[in-house]
């Protein structure tokens, strides 16, 4: 693929970003992260308080990507088969079986949006493990594949009742966990309250130009990006050091107030996680028009691709977000390249 095509796709990515930025204001950084994940073909988990625009953001992206779109709400009584099929009595009085949200769009499924994922039971999470990792599902004596599917999920971190913590294995399937916070810019906050266009979410999302990206060509183009953007030996060493630091932060002289750093980390980032980090870093380099990954590209995706993969001692899990942010910041400050 020529440089011209890389540039064309870059324009599309920028177009997608600008469209999303029009309808979801004050979230430039998460929008860049989600764009990166789309081109790196990684699943995305949004985390944030209630009513901060997580769902709107994901719906807007879904519209921009195009392709099949399915959505399911996480509830405590949701069972894995609810994702695969549903049964009902038809007008003729006979029972019927219809494909569930996962199967409904067939291979054209581009985005599977799982709202409030932490309300679903662990059985559902288990099903999702396979779907996310392999993009296949066995149902009705047949193997179904979803080669273009990305899972977008969100969860709110405030509510704990009737919720199930997503197991680390399921979390690891997500390329990124992106925190969504309310923008602190006064003008943006005011417009979110008073600008009437934000009141009707459906109308708002409809403002996004549909099908900006060709969802069925994303996989192929993603491979091109990964082949084209190089990682030098120095960068590889740097990434390895970052990985080691997530496993044994004390060896890199990292200290966090109120935390016994030797007991903090039970498991650092996984090999899959670091591989995803490099995929995302390559995409970030491509978006910036570079042919090689720089440490800055790694930094741009380090928190989003790594924080949710770290497994802390149970005593520190309640302060997970705060400690993970501090730990990763210090790792970036402690590890040098070259």
């Amino acid at each position: 693929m020529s440089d011209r095509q890389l540039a064309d796709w870059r324009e599309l990515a920028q177009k997608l970003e600008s469209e999303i930025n029009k309808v979801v204001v004050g979230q430039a950084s998460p929008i860049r992260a989600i764009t990166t994940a789309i081109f790196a073909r990684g699943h995305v988990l949004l985390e944030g308080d209630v009513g901060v625009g997580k769902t709107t953001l994901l719906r807007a992206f879904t519209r921009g990507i195009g392709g099949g779109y399915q959505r399911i709400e996480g509830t405590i009584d949701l069972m894995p088969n609810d994702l695969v099929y549903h049964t009902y009595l038809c007008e003729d009085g006979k029972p019927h079986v219809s494909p569930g949200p996962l199967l409904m769009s067939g291979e054209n499924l581009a985005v599977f949006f799982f709202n409030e994922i932490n309300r679903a039971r662990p059985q559902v999470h288990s099903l999702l493990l396979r779907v996310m990792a392999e993009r296949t599902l066995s149902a009705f004596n047949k193997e179904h594949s979803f080669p273009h599917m990305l899972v977008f999920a969100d969860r709110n971190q405030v509510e704990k009742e009737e919720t199930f913590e997503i197991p680390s294995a399921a979390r690891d399937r997500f390329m990124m966990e992106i925190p969504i916070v309310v923008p602190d810019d006064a003008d943006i906050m005011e417009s979110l309250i008073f600008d009437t266009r934000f009141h009707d979410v459906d109308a708002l999302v409809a403002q996004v130009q549909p099908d900006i990206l060709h969802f069925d060509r994303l996989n192929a183009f993603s491979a091109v990006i990964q082949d084209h953007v190089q990682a030098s030996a120095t960068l590889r060493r740097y990434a390895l050091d970052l990985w080691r630091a997530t496993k044994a932060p004390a060896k890199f002289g990292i200290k966090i107030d109120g935390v016994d750093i030797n007991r903090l980390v039970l498991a650092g980032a996984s090999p899959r996680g670091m591989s995803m980090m490099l995929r995302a870093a390559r995409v970030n380099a491509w978006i910036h028009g570079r042919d090689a990954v720089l440490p800055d590209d790694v930094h741009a995706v380090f928190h989003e691709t790594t924080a949710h993969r770290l497994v802390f001692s149970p005593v520190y899990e309640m302060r997970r977000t705060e400690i993970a942010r501090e730990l990763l910041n210090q790792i970036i400050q402690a590890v040098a390249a070259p």
Partner: protein
Amino acid sequence: MTVLLAAAGLLLSTSLAVAEQTLYEMKEANVKITTVEPERDVGYTVGDILQRTIVLEVKKPYTLLETSLPIVGYEHRWKGQPTGIELHKIETEQNDLGDSTTYMLRLDYQVFTNNIVAKPAILPAEFIKFKADGKFYQYRIPSWGFRISPIATFGAAKIELDMSPFRGPLLLDPNPEKKRLKVLIGVFAVALLGLLYILGSRAWLPRMGGPFASACRDINKLRKLPAADVALQQAVARVHQSLNATAGSSVFSDSLDSFLQKKPKFAPVKTDIEQFFGLSRQVFFEPQAAHQVGDSPLNWLRDFCRRCRDCERGLTPEERV
């Protein structure tokens, strides 16, 4: 020779004449004697000189017969035995007061004897003669008693307990202690300097020995390496180290602003630092990328390092040539 013989004959005849004269005792009323004796009367030993001054105020017409003065070198004897006290020197002074005459005699005696224990001794009485109206009168200057002390204590003695006021306190030799003190002061000074060096972040003077100062030296050495690309890689890595050491954490192009916030004295070289990251990108991460430091990156790095060194010393960085 003839003259000498004549003088000796005349002196002999005069002495014989005096000897033949009747000697009268000088009445006390005609002489007033004042003596100034040595300050102490003990503690003398062989070789010591004792001085006594005798002032005689003699009424006129009595005049001192100088030939009767004691003779230097004469050693007194006591019961035929020499006393060991010898007149060493004599000085006389005469002063006419009108109806009387004052004679001051300064007699220095030297001790030529000693003993293993203290023994009594005297400065002998001296007999001098006066003449008046053709008669001769004798006057006795009283003796003065003192003690001759041995040079060394007889038998075993513990010198520390010998608190003789004449010798004064025993003084210890301070030289070894002085030498030791000097050595210890030297060691202390060296230790203090070492401590200052360590506390001063391994710099002898304030603002010296900073990360960029040592980086400048290293880059100058690297410029002599034959392989330019290896030297350039090492030099860029060395500057990265200095930046990181200055910041206390890793500095990247995306954290340059926070670095300058933390170390505002590097603000004048912000553009240079950005160019340096461009060079680093080309050297370590993206060989195809262009940089803006010209054709001689090592020379540029050396100048950049110097400018950063000026910044770390709080100076205005020198302009690029």
